């Protein structure tokens, strides 16, 4: 109770209305880091921690809607999910998983540093966590731009053409994604130079790690580019991922296709299973006589949009007067399963996988961006040496948030990349 009284007495001097945000400065009973309405630092810490946990609960529920959508649509169209999953580059996903796990480790270490008042090490840990975040985004930029280039888009915009899986030209999506990061990097670099020239020590201290963080985005982009094109030569499962060069050109797909073709045929014996499993290897499919007619129908117009495609597919469906929800039953009795790949590649069906993929990974990426925002704030405060053994709450809360972002990715990775 005594502390309450002291708090009341000291706070009575404050100008209410305004003085709130700068609570109780310079009061010995009420340290500068303790907000006026709390009695003790413990109470403040507990409140913040409970609030953060509750916020994480809302985050989990926020994502739960999309996990539900994933479960529903995967239960309805398992072949679509398994087929489309092969368009995702497992190596890039795995790299990103590792990067995020490592960043969670450095974040947790950072919390420990804050508690032990190791200010230098805390700054290093936060900068490392931030760098991992930007590497993650760099890799993601490669993944996204590559898929957009191929036309692997949400249902309504889906324009992937199995007969022409590596379109030449088109907008350079990677450049669009990178542009803001380039701008920010240049900005930070200028800030660094200016603060160096003006001798602003604190600003220089802030700008140095931030420049490293910005540059790490391009490390991620480079890493992604190498792995994406590496997949082309080494592993045929990723042969659809041929187009990895940043200028959007597609080097030598033909060779890769024929190679993949033979490989896939050798691997799978049962024709139906092969048709499903090999479907992303579009080159292989286009050479398969059983599916040729279907693919021709789909691919008559290379510029077809998702909507046109959908209408065409519907027309075809009504012509055959089939009733199945998942499969079109064609005249050929054995074609129920064999025509599954066709269903998979029909825009509306393949599109729903990518709809869910973009919603989930996109909102996850937005969370990464938000995390970068709060981590930068922490980095600046850590350089200012705001934290001590009695006041490390913000580091702890941001750490919790960062772990949940990591956790969500740990669920997304197998559910999206590893279901073939």
């Amino acid at each position, binding site marked *: 109770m005594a502390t309450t009284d002291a708090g009341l007495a000291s706070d009575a001097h404050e100008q209410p*209305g305004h003085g*709130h945000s700068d609570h109780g400065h310079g009061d010995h009973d009420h340290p500068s880091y303790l907000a006026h309405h709390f009695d003790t630092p413990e109470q403040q810490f507990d*409140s913040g921690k409970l*609030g953060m946990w509750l916020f994480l609960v809302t985050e989990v*529920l*926020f994502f739960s*809607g999309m996990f539900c*959508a994933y479960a529903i649509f995967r239960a309805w169209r398992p072949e679509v999910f398994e087929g489309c999953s092969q368009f995702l580059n497992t190596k890039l996903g795995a790299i990103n998983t590792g990067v995020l796990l490592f960043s969670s480790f450095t974040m947790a270490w950072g919390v420990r540093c804050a508690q032990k008042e190791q200010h230098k090490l805390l700054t290093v840990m936060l900068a490392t966590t931030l760098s991992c975040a930007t590497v993650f985004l760099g890799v993601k930029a490669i993944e996204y731009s590559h898929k957009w280039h191929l036309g692997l888009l949400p249902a309504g915009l889906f324009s992937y053409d199995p007969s022409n899986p590596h379109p030449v030209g088109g907008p350079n999506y990677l450049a669009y994604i990178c542009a803001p990061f380039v701008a920010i990097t240049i900005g930070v670099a200028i800030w660094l130079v200016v603060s160096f020239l003006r001798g602003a020590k604190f600003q220089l201290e802030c700008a140095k790690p931030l420049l490293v963080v910005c540059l790490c985005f391009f490390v991620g982009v480079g890493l992604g580019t190498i792995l994406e094109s590496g997949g082309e030569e080494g592993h045929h499962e990723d042969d659809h991922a041929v187009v990895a060069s940043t200028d959007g050109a597609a080097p030598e797909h033909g060779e890769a296709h024929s190679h993949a073709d033979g490989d896939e045929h050798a691997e799978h014996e049962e024709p139906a299973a092969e048709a499903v499993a090999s479907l992303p290897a579009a080159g292989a499919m286009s050479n398969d006589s059983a599916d040729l007619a279907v693919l021709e129908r789909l691919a008559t117009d290379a510029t077809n949009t998702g909507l046109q495609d959908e209408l065409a597919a519907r027309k075809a469906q009504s012509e055959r007067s089939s009733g199945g929800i998942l499969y079109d039953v064609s005249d050929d009795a054995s074609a129920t399963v064999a025509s599954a790949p066709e269903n998979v590649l029909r825009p509306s069906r393949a599109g*729903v996988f990518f709809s869910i993929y*973009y919603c989930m990974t996109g909102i996850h990426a937005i969370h990464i961006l938000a995390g970068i925002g709060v981590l930068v704030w922490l980095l600046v405060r850590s350089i200012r040496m705001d934290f001590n053994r009695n006041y490390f709450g913000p580091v702890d809360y941001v750490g919790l948030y960062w772990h949940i972002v990591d956790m969500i990715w740990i669920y997304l990775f197998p559910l999206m990349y590893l279901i073939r």
Partner: protein
Amino acid sequence: MSAGSVPSGYEVNDPGYPTPQENYLTNSKGILSWAFTLDHKRIGMMYLIGVTSAFLLGGLLALGIRLHLFAPDGILFNNALFQWLAPDKAPNDIYNQVFTLHGAIMVFLFIIPSVPAALGNFLVPVMLGAKDVAFPRLNLSSFYLWVGGALFFVMALLASGLDTGWTFYTPYSTTTDSSVILATTGAFVLGFSSIFTGLNFIVTINTMRPPGMTWFRMPLFLWATYSTSIIQVLATPVLGITLLLLIAERTLHIGIFDPEYNGDPVTFQHFFWFYSHPAVYIMILPAFGIISELISVHSHKRIFGYRFIAYSSIAIALLSFIVWGHHMFTSGMSPITTIIFSALTFTVSVPSAIKVFNWVATMFKGSISLTTPMVYAIAFIFLFTIGGLTGLHLGTLATDMHLHDTYFVVAHFHYVMVGGTVVAFLGGVFHWWPKMVGKMYSEAGGLLSAALVFIGFNLTFLPQFILGSRGMPRRYATYDPEFAPLHQMSTYGALILGVGLFVALFVLLMSLYNGKKAPANPWGGATLEWNCTSPPPFYNFERPPVVGDPYEFGDIRWDTELDRYVKVEPQRERVPLETPAETPAHASE
């Protein structure tokens, strides 16, 4: 009884009146001191003004609906004035937009934030004995999120209206030309406002309780707020992602909800009601809390079955998450699912009935003063009972097939939302108004408003039960002439209800000009907010409050000398603080 009869070792605690420097309303001046305030009381007052404006807007739209339905072919939106205002819109389109905006504004902008955000913000820390909520800045930002969400709704209204119904059902919401994206963005933003308020209250109640304030010494309003906050935190994110996916569906055609792209509209309904059914309890649970306080204080009797009321709030909060399917009995769920949801729906009536029985038992042999808040509370019990019991007709599969999407549903949820929440909200505002502004209102005016609201409300919505059971579908702009008498009755009722609400507003606003100064404890309440001056000082309490039983009225005495209620407390040492200017002479006794 006067202060003279105080036993030895006890003292009279009467905080008197606040000085302008202490009074939270006047201790700092200027528009910026309000715009950037972190004081929960000021934020609560700003919310009160905001939700009242939303209520006025939504209410005017409701009057528009009722006036249009006065004649079978409509009389309002097809007259010359509306044709001149919106020449390119058919009267029925205008009607669709008006009822949609009425619903959306009332649900998202008024009812959900009404009690928790407006009254809750003002009362939670004071009732708890805390100085503020745990996160004052988050509190202010949630108010501004509310403002932002409201602006989105106004933009939707001005851009091209909204005609999907407040439920945004697909596939219509993915194909209509009206401003679905603006409105859903608004609802998304408002959702975060609601989440942050709920989060703040949970943390405040968990960590900011002063010594002595145990869970079972908390006033029941706090239990109700706590249960509400649980729902706000757990359900609202699901609405958020649903609306986000709806926006993505409209812009990118993601094919999750839109059958055009092989999506599933019923999935949208499941997602939507997973939030929106619990949201119904966000609307009604805080009203239960208000009624528990009102009934007990104005009956001057300990609340009956404290723990049952407390636990039933939590039970309702938890049950609310597993009954959403009863909105979709006719949407094509499997028979077994509908039976399960129907059975679960009935279980919600148990904790609700427990509350009603406890309130009635509290009044039994109490010393009831028929003040304005008490009259509102009694009206609440009457109206909520009708609203709750008609809910059972809708939870029953066989009758719901007949009554689904008829005026019976409209009447049912208006009995719960208006007869329940709005009446409780008005009762709560009248009850705590002296505390909030420091002025007493005209009791006669308050009673008049309560009578008009009660009569007008019943006249509006009782006929709608009959209309619905005779087959009048909801959301229709025109109807068969045989329904005309009941519709006209309903319209007359709406006008009386409108007058009643304006009388209430007038009485409250007039009290600011000519109201008597309010004492600290005008009703003889025992909860902590009556221990501080009216209006409370900036830090709520001059000295840490002694936490006692919130429903022990034995030590609340009517002091004939002071002409007000005072509290008799065990004597304790005075903490040397600045002495209030108007310390009563006998306080040092």
